[in-house]
């Protein structure tokens, strides 16, 4: 969701106005950012996305005054906050369950794919698209979401994920290829399941 330069200027001004207490400016920012943030969180934490998003916005409003930068940086800043809240949430949940499952596995489990790909050919709903993306290895899923859904560039996405821009680019490209592969196979209902084919050789997706 790239913004034109004029729009970007407006949004940057909106951030400054919101920092000064302008409620309308804040609403504009919220509407620009929240849908993507929520979708990202849905892939990370599933049904708890709304709760985690609330926590994230609470922190965003609390720390808003300290933010410095343009709107792209602001997107990245909010995404970082949301991601941290999501990881906290997953740790809590894992602890509650008494499991020692690594976060990444929980992510994969929460975002378990179902057979949505079968109906994806005609018109892909946002929900179905997110489920397909969620079925990717988590680093690819995150890279694709941050770039496509939240509109971050590779550098900003890398900052959110604590990786280099190049690593994010590679992960996102792999994710796209994998999605394309699955879509190409989606005559079968098994399309979404990860296969030990071409992608089975992929290196460990975690770092």
């Amino acid at each position, binding site marked *: *969701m*790239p913004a034109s330069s004029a729009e970007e200027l407006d949004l940057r001004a909106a951030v*400054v106005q*919101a*920092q*000064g*207490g302008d*409620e309308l400016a*804040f*609403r504009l920012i*919220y*509407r620009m950012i*929240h*849908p*993507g943030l*929520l*979708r990202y969180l849905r892939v990370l934490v599933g049904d708890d996305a*709304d709760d985690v*998003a*609330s926590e994230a*916005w*609470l922190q965003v*409003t*609390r720390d*808003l*005054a300290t933010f410095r930068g343009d709107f792209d940086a602001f997107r990245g800043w909010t995404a970082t906050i949301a991601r941290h809240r999501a990881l906290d949430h997953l740790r809590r949940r894992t602890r509650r369950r008494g499991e020692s499952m690594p976060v990444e596995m929980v992510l994969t489990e929460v975002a378990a794919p179902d057979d949505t790909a079968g109906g*994806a*050919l005609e*018109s*892909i*709903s*946002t929900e*179905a*698209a*997110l489920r*397909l*993306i969620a079925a990717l290895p988590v680093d690819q899923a995150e890279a*694709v*979401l941050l*770039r*496509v*859904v939240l*509109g971050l*560039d*590779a550098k900003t996405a890398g900052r959110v994920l604590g990786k280099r821009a190049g690593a994010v*680019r590679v992960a*996102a*490209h792999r994710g*796209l*290829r994998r*999605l*394309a*592969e699955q*879509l*190409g*196979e*989606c*005559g079968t209902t098994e399309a979404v399941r990860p296969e030990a084919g071409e992608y089975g050789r992929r290196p460990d997706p975690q770092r």
Partner: protein
Amino acid sequence: MTTRRPRRIGRGDAERMLRGAPVEAGAGPDHLADLLAAAAAPARDGELDGEEAAVAAFRVAPLAPVTQPRREPMSKLLLAKLLTVKVAATALGAVAVGGVAVAASTGGLPLTGGRGDAAVSSTATPSVEVTAPSLPTPSAGAHVSAQLFGLCHAYTAAADAGAALASPGMSALVTAAGGRDQVGGFCAKVLAAQAGATVTPGLAGGADGGTAGAGVDASAGPAGVGKRGLGLGVGASAGPGGAGLGVGVGSGAGVGTHAGPTGAGLSGQVPGAGVAATASPGGLGSGVATSTASPGAAGLSVAVSAGASPPAHR
């Protein structure tokens, strides 16, 4: 209908798709572009349900530091007006508030309550000092004032004045008045002065009628508030047709109010930081200002800043 077997996506195409840019026809799988577009589609029903909650959090969130103007256009408009009014208001205020304003701006409140002598500087009427019982008394002087105040009440209320004065508790009053026969006149003066005085709990209060209108000053010494040498002063002064109220905390922070010709205002004066608000004729402004007090600036340097402009005042 596109081919079921997608062409392998090149890096350039992948990058374009990730940016949301249209991919050249045939260069990438349509379905993938559709999928990404769907994932990034505009908000749907329910996705913005949290907006009001977020806005509620936003409303109570701290604002950016004062260097970030909150409402710049308005503050700019007001500032010019305020600066004019400020001078008039502070001039008037300085007359009524007298020593308190000067003290506040010189960076150290003279702790007038504690000394009991400077609470009202430009007044013809006797000042009345009252110290709240809950706070440590700055000095015996202020304490006696409070006592005398009560004693005068008791004296005037007593059915038999002579018998009342005979009680040991009244000895202080008799002494202060300069003799039993002087008590009546003394108390009349004291109680008359009370009419113009506002007594704030915890503060020493002084009353005076300034030429600028009616004014009430109250100030407490360092011992009066806390025990860390913090002075607290309250000053209120009325200009012709206006009214004001102010609070000043010595050497730490201060708030003062002065009324302009037709409005009401609030201004702060502190060596460190102050809260200031001043009303222009017909308008109202408020802001936070940092002021550096210089001895020479006296009461006229009362910090007035509209909106949240950086420390531009005096």
